């Protein structure tokens, strides 16, 4: 069991190194980032106390994938397997518990811990057998699989948007647009094998435009119902809502062209900093997009021509 956790620790270190950070600095930054974001959530949103436990449970579910647990079960005896699951679950929710304790939400922290403990003794919920119908069939694959992985987030966002409307809290409702956009951006985080680019008949420019066009159509399918709903209840914020929508498109396009600009590598530290600056000052993205677009064409030409 000790070896298992040493191996996981090595994997985490390698992952951080791969992102361009020295491992221990990366770990410290992740911890600071987590607490900063937690604080921001509670500072900005009055109903954060309901969102936070959901985020903790969602994190747990993400690490309880059926095949992964089956593999651990094959490697170890039943008793060791249970120990691993309990320790893993506890480690995963530990940062959430620390932050909730800091806010003196001891009861909630205790309930989350209880859930994580009990959950380790149940077979993992499999999200991978039933193929959920989506409106993204025509142009696979990013939104198709991304939506299926993240659909609980979208259900949660729809509920939050409704709560935002009911309590007339525009910030909360607008927060759902931001999270929906970030979720859609995450659909493009996986660097696909060159084979799945190679199969396309398009040249590099047409390939990129195809990817961008698909992403804009599909993010609109996700965002527009939300924006229309919010526009109806917050009519005075109409311009702001359309601005959010435009920024969402800019974010997504930047995300796609930035991905292929450094393809087949993953986004590293310098690139992440450049992108973060752009996301904080969206007008800068108007300069980024043509620059990354040109760089993407150079990278894609190696495969498509």
């Amino acid at each position, binding site marked *: 069991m000790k070896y298992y956790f040493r191996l996981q620790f090595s994997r985490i270190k390698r992952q951080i190194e791969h992102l361009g950070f020295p491992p221990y600095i990366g770990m410290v930054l992740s911890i600071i980032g987590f607490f900063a974001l937690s604080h921001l959530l509670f500072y900005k949103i009055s109903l954060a106390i309901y969102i936070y436990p959901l985020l903790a449970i969602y994190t747990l579910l993400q690490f309880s994938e059926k095949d992964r647990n089956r593999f651990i079960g094959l490697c170890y005896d039943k008793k060791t397997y249970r120990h691993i699951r309990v320790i893993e679950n506890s480690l995963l929710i530990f940062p959430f518990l620390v932050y909730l304790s800091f806010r003196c939400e001891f009861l909630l922290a205790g309930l989350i811990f209880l859930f994580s403990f009990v959950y380790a003794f149940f077979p993992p919920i499999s999200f991978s057998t039933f193929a959920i119908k989506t409106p993204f069939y025509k142009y696979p694959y990013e939104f198709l699989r991304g939506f299926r992985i993240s659909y609980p987030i979208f259900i949660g966002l729809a509920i939050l948007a409704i709560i935002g409307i009911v309590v007339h809290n525009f910030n909360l409702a607008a927060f759902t647009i931001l999270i929906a956009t970030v979720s859609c951006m995450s659909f493009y985080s996986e660097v696909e094998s060159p*084979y799945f680019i190679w199969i396309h008949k398009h040249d590099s420019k047409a390939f990129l435009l195809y990817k961008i066009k698909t992403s804009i159509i599909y993010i609109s399918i996700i965002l527009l119902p939300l924006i229309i709903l919010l526009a109806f209840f917050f009519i005075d914020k109409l311009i702001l809502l359309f601005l959010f929508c435009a920024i969402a498109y800019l974010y997504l396009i930047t995300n796609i062209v930035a991905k292929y600009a450094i393809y087949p590598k993953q986004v590293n530290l310098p690139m992440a900093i450049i992108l973060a600056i752009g996301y904080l000052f969206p007008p800068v993205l108007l300069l980024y997009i043509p620059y990354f677009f040109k760089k993407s064409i150079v990278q894609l030409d190696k495969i498509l*021509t």
Partner: protein
Amino acid sequence: MIQLINLSKSFATKKVLHDINLELETGKVYGIVGENGAGKTTLFRCIAGLEIHDGEVTSDFPLLKNHLGFLETNPYIFTRITGVEYLQLFAQARKISSINFHERNIFDLPLDEYASNYSTGMKKKLALLAILLQSNDVYILDEPFSGVDIQSNIIITEIILKLKELGKTVIISSHIFSTLQDTCDEIHLLQEGQFTKKVLPEEYSLLESEMKTITIGNQIERLCLS
């Protein structure tokens, strides 16, 4: 016609392919045999344009890759994508629309289920179906028979013969010699990145026994089984 002219490939300091020269005529089926690590997959990836290489790959097509279907040894299947969506991805990549995938599902695959849950053989059949439905002119099939059940082996053999009949060029690698015998117009032996032998149908049985001798030698004795 496809021509490979002095095709070479190195990974760091290790040379994997050495000055490969080969002419692949339209409407013929070519078999490539060789041990694991002989360079078969690398050769296929070079022909497809998935690897940067020295030498040339020329063809009658302006861009060979747009007319080429490449079946990988272990096709990668994205998680949470159904069989029919995988086929749609490949069709869409070639701008082909309105295919009734269920009607053309000759392998009876459960197309509405997640393809990542398929068995190894089913994944291979799905990937093969995907490139067949693209209506390519050239096919590279890297180990199309491995991991596939006997009934599907028969179907794949018939598909290859049908492709030949339709004037398509097919390049296959396989460890199952009988399937190559049934389909190939010529077989090339690849050893340590070089073609060492070209074998025509009348010499196939000779090649099989020769390969058996080379491959097995006294290896089994070394196991000291008791």
